């Protein structure tokens, strides 16, 4: 083994004279101890590489030991093939210092797989062999390297026409269903969810978490894996968000990774980022549908898009109410006009007819009065005639009456005289017939029981009778027998 090593070195570096001497005596089987050989190598190397050198190499693996010391594998590749490789050593104190300056300047920890600029001293250990003792790593070189990688990603995306691919998607009117790529413990996730859930407008979002590593070397593959999962259920989602935060601004170069950026650009749903860092944008943020900067701002954007939907709905409602009212009012007004017009026409027609009616009435009255006055003249004439006639008749009758009266007067007086004479005679006769006069002439009246004795008032023996004469009243008692019926003289 030692021989091979020595030989290898002899190609590049001519061995020193003492070593040559030893070789010259090989035929005499001069034997060296391993320690002597190794010591010789060490001396040679120490003498030859007494300086320190800046070496550009890719750190393939960091190989950090629990002690904190690292034994990275350094390599150089050309066209994908390793053309040089050597192991290195970084002591814990150096590693800690380098990491601090990297985080400060490059915003990235020392990262496996990237090309870095190492300050090295070529050392040879009797036990561990040759290695590059790394005294420092230049963060500014790494920063430039990261920038170059980022630009390469951008260039490649531009070439493949992917820069605006995701941004050209139509954003849903109402992004309700959100696939969230984040980590359970991420502060960014809790910020995002808190803003969505605590919105005061009562907007309701549906979110589903797709957990992924969010920084460092593994993030790109982890996020891409979740994007692929979402792809299988994309019909249930309106948008994808990648939220991260609270972890400081380091380890974000994964968001410049071409594979990740291409996956985002090609995703059929809008992918929104809120990975919460404020310096240079990563490529993922640049090509995402929208970059919300922080998860909180991203969540607020979602609420705004709900607003943008809700407000036009409110406006539409108001407009419909307003326009409906106006339409009804206009129609009402038109109807009112028509009604008024109709009324005016009807009134006009009515008053026309009324006027006509009045005129007719006047005409009629006039005609009536005319005819009445004509008739009254006739009546007057008739009355005149009647009066004259009556007057004439009266006059005639008066004359006849007068004539009759004239004739009646002497006749009447004569008749009256005759009646008076007759009456005087009658009165004398009546006087002659009075009972006193009869009694005077010698006649008497006999009464029994207060009544004149007659056939109806007879007397018998013992009855008292009263006889009235002209001057006497004679009371007698019947003595004999029967009353005899006397034949009347007449």
């Amino acid at each position: 083994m030692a021989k091979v090593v020595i030989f290898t070195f002899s190609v590049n570096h001519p061995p020193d004279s003492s070593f040559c001497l030893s070789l010259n005596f090989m035929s005499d089987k001069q034997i060296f101890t391993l320690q002597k050989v190794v010591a010789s190598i060490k001396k040679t190397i120490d003498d030859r590489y007494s300086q320190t050198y800046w070496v550009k190499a890719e750190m393939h693996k960091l190989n950090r030991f629990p002690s904190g010391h690292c034994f990275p594998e350094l390599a150089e590749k050309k066209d994908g093939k390793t053309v040089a490789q050597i192991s290195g050593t970084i002591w814990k104190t150096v590693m800690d210092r380098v990491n601090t300056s990297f985080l400060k300047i490059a915003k990235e920890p020392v990262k496996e797989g990237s090309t870095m600029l190492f300050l090295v001293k070529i050392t040879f250990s009797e036990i561990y062999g040759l290695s590059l003792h790394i005294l420092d790593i230049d963060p500014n070189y790494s920063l430039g390297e990261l920038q170059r990688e980022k630009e390469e990603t951008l260039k490649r995306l531009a070439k493949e026409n992917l820069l605006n691919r995701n941004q050209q998607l139509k954003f849903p009117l109402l992004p309700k269903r959100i696939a969230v790529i984040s980590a359970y413990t991420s502060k960014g996730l809790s910020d995002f969810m808190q803003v969505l859930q605590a919105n005061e407008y009562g907007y309701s979002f549906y979110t589903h978490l797709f957990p992924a590593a969010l920084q460092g070397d593994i993030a790109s593959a982890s996020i891409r894996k979740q994007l692929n999962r979402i792809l299988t259920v994309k019909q249930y989602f309106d948008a994808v968000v990648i939220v991260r935060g609270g972890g400081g601004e380091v380890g974000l170069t994964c968001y410049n990774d071409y594979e990740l950026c291409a996956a985002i650009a090609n995703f059929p749903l809008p992918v929104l980022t809120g990975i919460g860092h404020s310096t240079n944008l990563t490529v993922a943020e640049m090509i995402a549908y929208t970059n919300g900067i922080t998860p909180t701002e991203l969540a607020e954007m979602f609420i705004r898009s709900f607003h943008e939907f809700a407000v036009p709905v409110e406006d539409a409602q108001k407009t419909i109410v307003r326009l409906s009212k106006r339409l009804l009012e206009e129609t009402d007004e038109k109807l009112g006009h028509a009604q008024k017009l109709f009324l005016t026409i009807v009134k006009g027609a009515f008053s026309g007819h009324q006027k006509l009616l009045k005129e007719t009435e006047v005409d009629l009255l006039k005609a009536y009065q005319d005819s009445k006055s004509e008739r009254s003249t006739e009546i007057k004439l008739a009355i005149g005639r009647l009066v004259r006639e009556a007057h004439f008749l009266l006059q005639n009758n008066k004359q006849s009456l007068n004539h009759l009266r004239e004739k009646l007067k002497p006749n009447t007086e004569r008749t009256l005289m005759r009646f008076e004479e007759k009456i005087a005679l009658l009165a004398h006769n009546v006087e002659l017939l009075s009972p006193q006069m009869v009694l005077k002439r010698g006649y008497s009246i006999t009464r029994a029981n207060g009544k004149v004795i007659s056939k109806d008032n007879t007397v018998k023996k013992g009855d008292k009778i009263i006889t009235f004469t002209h001057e006497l009243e004679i009371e007698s008692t019947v003595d004999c027998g029967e009353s005899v019926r006397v034949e009347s003289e007449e």
Partner: protein
Amino acid sequence: MSKEELSYDKAFEELQQIVRDMEEGEIGVDELSVKVKRASELIKICKTKLSSTEEDVSKILKGLE
């Protein structure tokens, strides 16, 4: 078309169309009550969409397996 089948995009578009028609005076009194009724339905759909959660989680998870 039932309320469930009508997406908010379509509901919103139809609502906007009604508003445009009204603004352009293309809706007369005869249609007004029908259109206003439809609009109020659409508004209700849109507003419900803002505040409701309708997704079936199990369906999504099943799709993920």
